[in-house]
């Protein structure tokens, strides 16, 4: 097992290297530099802009810049933001808690909805409950998060005035009030992200359950006289969860992607909004670092999925 994990980690190294190379080259070829805002400012002569470019090494050839970056990265130096003039890792660490809080809660919400609803719908296929759940799921994953986000704001903030739509990181309160405020301001973004996830997951859980529920061993279990709950939870769910785990793991990057839009709409200071503002201001080191973090997450979650398989289904041998 540990040997397997180790080998997978070693395989991850060249793929991460390749990813970083592609990212770097694409970013280097993209037009614009972080000082373009100075271009139309008549107060700033073009020489100043040229000097700044030289100072930040933007005039070096691409391969040299990549090697510099790689070397610094190996030493744990994530680079230096052109725009904020501070270290990129500080910038990302500052933003990470908000993203993890929102995405984590959204994912938990999605699971809490998808698994019970999907399982229940599968035990009574084509019943009224199943039909309703199916319809809602279709509606859910047909609506993009940027649309539901704005819809939620219009309904719950503007019309009803129940919830704030600007997320604040430091709420001026302590104890239980702080917790309540944190929850209150996260309701909308978490609901937007969570419901979107839950919709497609419900469909998946349902079909995975249906595949398993018809198998002979389930009939055997029933014939043994086991109760419905035991059969479903102990025998069916465990096997049905294998494809679901894959789906969840592979969807994690998509969740981060969806979070970028949601963070922008609700002004959540997470790494998604950091990515957008950095792209807008052509702050290449930050864009590079954030996209690289996303790449690492994809690799990591794939690995986690593989390890979970072994736990769910001992027949799958990890060699």
């Amino acid at each position, binding site marked *: 097992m540990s040997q397997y994990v180790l080998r997978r980690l070693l395989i991850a190294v060249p793929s991460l290297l390749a990813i970083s190379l592609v990212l770097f080259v694409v970013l280097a070829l993209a*037009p*614009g*530099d*972080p*000082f*373009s*805002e*100075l*271009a*139309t*400012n*008549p*107060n*700033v*002569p*073009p*020489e*100043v*802009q*040229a*000097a*700044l470019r030289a*100072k930040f090494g933007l005039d070096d050839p691409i391969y040299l810049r990549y090697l510099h970056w790689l070397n610094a990265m190996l030493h744990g130096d994530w680079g*230096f*933001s052109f*725009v*904020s*003039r*501070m270290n990129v890792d500080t*910038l990302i660490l*500052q*933003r990470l808690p908000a993203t993890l809080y929102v995405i984590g809660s959204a994912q938990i919400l999605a699971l809490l909805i998808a698994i019970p609803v999907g399982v229940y719908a599968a035990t009574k296929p084509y019943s009224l409950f199943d039909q309703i759940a199916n319809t809602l799921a279709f509606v859910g994953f047909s609506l993009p998060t940027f649309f539901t986000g704005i819809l939620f*704001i219009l309904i719950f*903030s*503007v019309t009803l*005035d129940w919830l*704030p*739509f*600007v997320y*604040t*990181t*430091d709420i001026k309160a302590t104890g239980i009030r702080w917790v309540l405020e944190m929850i209150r301001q996260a309701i909308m973004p978490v609901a937007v992200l969570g419901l979107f996830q839950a919709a497609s997951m419900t469909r998946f859980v349902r079909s995975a359950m249906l595949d398993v529920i018809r198998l002979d061993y389930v009939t055997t279990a029933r014939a043994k006289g086991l109760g419905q709950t035991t059969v479903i939870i102990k025998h069916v769910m465990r096997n049905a969860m294998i494809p679901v785990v894959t789906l969840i793991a592979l969807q994690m990057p998509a969740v981060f992607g969806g979070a970028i839009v949601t963070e*922008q*709409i*609700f*002004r*959540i*200071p997470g790494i998604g*909004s*950091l990515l957008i*503002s950095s792209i*807008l*201001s*052509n702050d290449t080191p930050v864009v590079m670092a954030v996209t690289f973090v996303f790449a690492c997450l994809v690799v990591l979650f794939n690995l986690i999925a593989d390890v979970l398989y072994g736990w769910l289904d001992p027949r799958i041998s990890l060699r």
Partner: protein
Amino acid sequence: MLEKELRSMIGQVKDGRMDRRAFVKRLAAVGFTAPLANQLLALGGVAMAQSPAVYKPTKRGGGGPLKVLWWQGPTLLNPHFATGTKDQDGSRLFYEPLASWDADGNLNPILAAEIPSLANGGLAADAKSVVWKIKPGVKWHDGKPLTADDFVFTWQYASDPATAAVSISTYGDITVEKVSDLSIRILFKTPTPFWANAFVGAYGCVLPKHLFAEYKGSKSREAPNNLTPVGTGPYKFVEFKPGDVVRGELNPDYHMPNRPHFDTIEMKGGGDAVSAARAVIQTGEFDFAWNMQVEDDVLLRLEKGGKGKTVYATGGDIEFIAINFTDPNVEIDGERSSIKTKHPILSDPNVRKALALLVDRDSVKKAIYGRAGRTTANYLNGPEKFVSKNTSWEFNIEKASKMLDDAGWKVGADGVREKDGKKFKLLYQTSTNGPRQKTQAIVKQACQKAGIDVELKSVVASVFFSSDVANPDTYPKFYADIEEFQIPMTQPDPALHMRRYISANVATKENKWQGQNFPRYVNKEYDDAIAAAETETDPVKRAALYIKCNDLLWQDTVFIPVMHRLLVDACSNTLRPALSGWANRTDNIQDWYREA
């Protein structure tokens, strides 16, 4: 008796305990006219109408929290590294300059004891130096006193190329020397009629020498105070998360009486303009939102029965269509739009005039800019004393068609004009942006009616405004016949704004297209007028010269001004912000208050 009372009242106005209007009213009660009262104030050392913003609060603090929304949040808090206005706005909460610009483009003293003038001996007659007196008793947030040394240091810091400060353009060509502990002298190499650049406005913020002295030059980016500012401003630094939030609290030792009004300030970043407008106007979660680049229709809809409104400040930002004087389709020595060529169609002044007649500025204003724009014939739109009254504009398709007929461009079989077998076709480029592309459509329609075939092109802003030498689509390369964008006017003086278009500044391959004269306009008369204006010390003659320059640009139709754009912000109904179109939004933050 009367004299004694008068003097005490003037004193009160001077340090802000009584406002100007109250003073004038009191005097009116005893039979003095308003102009006379103002004169009395001037004699008493209160400059004329320095601060049109009336400040009502009578004590420091008590205003509660001030929450403002910048949809692009500040990313750093060192005013000398601030590339964009968002960073300057954030820094300005904590750092202060000697003076700021008020709504009319006049100087408003902040750290200065008085505004230098010829009368008080601050300005030299030859315009080669200026002496600023620093207000006594000002303290940095850490308790150290503010002295002339801080100003001299700030100059050394910003003018050192190794520091890589963006304000080097302001400080590079001057020398600053200490006269006494509380006064400095700025020396210019050449006579400089516009002396209020260094230590004024956004790049004028002074840094504390005792905290930055070790971080001058190449070590500049290691300074811990780059992220934790210690200034003299109305608010003390509490917290900063780049791009997300800047927070400050009331500075109990602030040097202006009764200021600031608010106990805390929070500047939140992120999101987009429309939802920022919502948070202020509809839900009232925030008090103020910056830069509402939103169509007027949307704003009007939000404002119906809302908790806030939009506010406007007039500056000199001009949206225009520039005309290429050179040929973008002929390559000479690997360079298109080379100064050695002449535009085959647009080099005829009558054709350019006809083109100007085809821009329906009223429709553009009605359909796009609404309250945020003013139609104008001028390239130079402020301050008032520099605005030409000699120009005019009209929208007249028939007149334009006739002028084109007279110029030899006859309508061909396909409805497009031609001359000597050449079709009247223009490539019209701009940066990708809703309002600009709508303007393109309006202009194209009128041109079609007049028999001109216009091809529209829009370039992503990050490319269009970049200095990338390798990219053909940047605005200085101008590989098109006409192009539209906006040039902001960052200070209430036309010197830099007008200097761009002298012949020496033509953008060429040789100067890597960094010359700022992108229309490639060459006119000896214009060059001479600019040269004369730059050394003219008589303000009236100088204004006349800049008006002449504006009129030359108009006569020669170098630009077709589309819209004089105003700054638009969203503001809660009770907040009274002190805004100026000549300064950043937070440049007079000490004067903001909330009406009870």
